[in-house]
């Protein structure tokens, strides 16, 4: 199987969904799942291979290259995994909606285009797939209608700004080196002037920062994530925004090279430290904004931004531990964030679209599998030992501490606290506490939803216990960037000052759990009583609002709220309004009076004559 064939299968499968869809919806579902699995399998066969195919097809006289290596494969397998899990989850989630053909087609198309991005071997094909991904994502974000429309607009406008910057960067490189393939550029760029390299890199940060939701460019993400259909939110948050991370790695390590990057500075401020601090800000502020959210998906969305901060911090830090941590966090975030979105999706599916944290509660007994999934996902994102999130965060902390960067380390730590707080709220408000009356008869999530939830949970624990599996691949490409090689074994990773050994760790954690279980199992059980009788003297009260978890962190919010305004978003909104107003003013030029139009013609002739007189050349 060649890469070209894989992409043809992926794209063809996506576009041909309409055909079985015309016959029956069952057939279409089967087709979609089969295509997704076929792509997953196909991707898996490239494990460990290094391929470099120049296609016979050329675009505008420029050769197109597909290539794969450890880095690409790492991302590709994550893409096709998350993609196929989401497709399976969609089977029942999307069943009763309209335009399901469209939905599946776009899901597969986005999947295919993301694969194309990571397999692209030159800047042009990268861009083509990137753009296909962007507009397909736009269509799918808008799928939910209502609030989703402005969210989609926000996304696509920012995304287009990014692609514009990309095009400028890519074609500046082309103008200088008359090639667009990564390999050729990376050998030639070593001689470039610092100014040119910074120009390219800053444009690149803009492009990938937008997709990645790095802080000044993050505003599209909360809206888009929360308004998209949940299985797609999983893809969006899990892997689509990581294409930005891939781009970061590509520009920083593959094209320019870390050594060159670390030397770029303007006066005392180096580009690297700017990026690191952006990462740190991205960790802290969005995490605390997330804490205040009452919409389950919005909360998750803000956390996506926060977690991206860890990834960027790790990657920009540039030590091999940091890069490995960042890259591993990509995979981990893909698993636990997708899992969390799917759990919320399952809840949403059963409760009829409710995702307001204040009106849910006590669903643990009604939807146990979903609860377990959410629990493991939350553990993962907090970074509890035994989950994969722990390992990647450990790597990042370790490198920050080793290099004696207390402020960055503190920022990372602060982010974790925020995460802990908000996921306590998340878990509690949905699954624990009291079950509202109206959800008494809630059924379990359908099997097609439980399968991906369980699979994700399994993966999180597996990679948490045996982090060596992915770390081996990561160590492979980290070495290829010219960083110090990592010493990885199946149980963990060896660093200069300490060794991560998950076996010991898991023994400890499991015994702690066991001890806790013993305590709880043999102590007295709490007896649930109905709460409303004590209040209001028997008058009927709005029960939904009397959950004690309503407005969970209200005091905290009152304290921090005013510092957590999304200033950037307000700025972009202002910008949009200014554009609109400019349009309103500018179009007054077209006065509707025919004489004015003649005046314009005379004006331009007279102006030209005047220019010629004042400015004879």
């Amino acid at each position, binding site marked *: 199987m060649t890469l070209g064939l894989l992409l043809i299968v992926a794209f063809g499968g996506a576009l041909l969904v309409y055909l079985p869809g015309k016959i029956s919806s069952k057939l279409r579902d089967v087709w979609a799942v089969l295509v997704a699995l076929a792509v997953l399998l196909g991707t898996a066969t490239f494990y460990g291979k290094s391929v470099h195919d120049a296609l016979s097809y050329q675009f505008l006289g420029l050769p197109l290259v597909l290539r794969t290596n450890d880095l690409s494969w790492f991302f590709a397998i994550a893409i096709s995994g998350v993609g196929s899990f989401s497709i399976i989850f969609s089977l029942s989630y999307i069943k009763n909606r309209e335009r399901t053909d469209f939905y599946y087609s776009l899901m597969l198309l986005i999947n295919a285009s993301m694969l194309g991005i990571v397999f692209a071997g030159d800047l042009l094909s990268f861009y083509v797939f990137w753009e296909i991904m962007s507009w397909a994502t736009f269509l799918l974000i808008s799928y939910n209608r209502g609030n989703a429309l402005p969210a989609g607009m926000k996304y696509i406008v920012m995304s287009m700004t990014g692609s514009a910057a990309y095009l400028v960067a890519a074609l500046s490189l082309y103008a200088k080196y008359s090639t667009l393939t990564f390999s050729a550029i990376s050998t030639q760029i070593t001689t470039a002037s610092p100014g040119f390299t910074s120009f390219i890199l800053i444009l690149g940060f803009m492009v990938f920062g937008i997709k990645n939701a790095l802080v000044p460019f993050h505003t599209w993400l909360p809206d888009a994530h929360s308004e998209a259909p949940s299985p797609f939110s999983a893809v969006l948050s899990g892997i689509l925004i990581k294409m930005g991370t891939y781009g970061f790695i590509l520009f920083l390590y593959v094209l320019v090279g870390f050594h060159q990057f670390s030397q770029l500075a303007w006066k005392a401020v180096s580009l690297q430290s700017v990026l690191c601090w952006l990462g740190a800000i991205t960790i802290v502020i969005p995490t605390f904004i997330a804490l205040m959210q009452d919409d389950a998906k919005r909360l998750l969305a803000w956390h996506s931004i926060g977690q991206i901060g860890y990834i960027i911090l790790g990657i920009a830090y540039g030590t091999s531990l940091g890069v490995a941590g960042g890259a591993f966090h990509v995979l981990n975030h893909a698993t636990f964030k997708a899992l969390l979105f799917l759990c919320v999706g399952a809840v949403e599916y059963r409760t009829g679209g409710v995702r307001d944290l204040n009106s849910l509660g006590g669903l643990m007994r009604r939807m146990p599998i979903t609860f377990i999934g959410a629990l493991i996902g939350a553990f993962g994102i907090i970074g509890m030992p035994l989950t994969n999130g722990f390992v990647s965060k450990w790597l990042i902390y370790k490198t920050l501490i080793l290099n004696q960067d207390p402020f960055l380390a503190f920022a990372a730590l602060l982010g974790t606290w925020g995460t802990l707080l908000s996921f306590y709220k998340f878990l509690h408000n949905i699954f624990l506490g009291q079950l509202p009356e109206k959800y008494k008869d809630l059924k379990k999530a359908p099997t097609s939803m439980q399968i991906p939830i369980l699979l994700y949970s399994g993966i999180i624990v597996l990679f948490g216990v045996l982090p060596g599996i992915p770390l081996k691949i990561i160590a492979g490409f980290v070495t290829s960037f010219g960083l110090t090689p990592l010493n990885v074994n199946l149980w963990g990773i060896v660093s200069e000052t300490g060794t991560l050994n998950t076996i010991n760790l898991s023994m400890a954690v499991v015994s702690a759990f066991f001890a806790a279980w013993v305590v709880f199992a043999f102590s007295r059980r709490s007896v649930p009583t109905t709460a409303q009788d004590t209040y209001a003297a028997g008058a009927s009260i709005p029960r939904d609002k009397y959950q004690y978890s309503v407005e969970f962190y209200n005091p905290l919010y009152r304290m921090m709220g005013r510092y957590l305004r999304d200033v950037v978003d307000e700025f972009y909104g202002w910008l949009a309004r200014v554009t609109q107003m400019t349009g309103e003013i500018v179009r007054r030029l077209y006065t509707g009076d025919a*004489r004015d139009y003649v*005046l314009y013609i*005379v*004006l331009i*002739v*007279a102006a030209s*004559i*005047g220019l010629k*007189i004042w400015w004879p050349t």
Partner: protein
Amino acid sequence: MRILISCVLLVILSLGLVFALEQAPFGSNQIDNADKPGRFYLNQGMEKTGAANVVTSVVVTYRGFDTLGEVTILFIAAIGLGAVFHSRKKVKRYEKEKQSASLILQTGCRFLFPLIVLFGTYVFIHGHLSPGGGFQGGVIIASAFLLLFLGCEEKKIPMKSMNTVESLAGIIFVGIGLAGLYWGESFLENFLPRGMDYMLLSGGVIPIIYIAIGFKVGAELAGIVAGLIERNP
């Protein structure tokens, strides 16, 4: 305000035009150049085409393609007018004020009409010999129709036959051009013998084309006039 701006702009424009035009070497000194088309037409036009009126030979053969375009533009104006007026409601407003022309006027019109048409025909038939030509003749014929409209209101021009004349004349023009392509070497080539100088039958295809143009222009302008004064839909 508007007047002020206009004045300023127009002053700049006119000064620019006048000064620029003054510095340009116009007229005499350019045409003496023998490879210039103007000189060439004067020196050899008569011999090549046999038309005594050099302007006509330029209009009909050398720049015949322009003339074809020009005829087309008139045609466009005629049918465009028809299209614009097509869906129009009949306006009755002006009917009341109408007053039929006096007998003298009516008789005079009827008397003059054939004479004017004859004159117009003369002008376009002799277009290659004397000043005048298809356009001029056509306009004169159209003016005869205008007179008819003004004087004798009950007269209607037969629109259908006008259209036919227009269409046929146009096809003849194009047909002659294609015949030139077939028998000669290029479109609109003067493929007929040039005939005797200064005689009516000279100039090869020029008189034929001019007659076609004359009919076409006459019919079209009459149609335009008719359209504008609402005689016909």
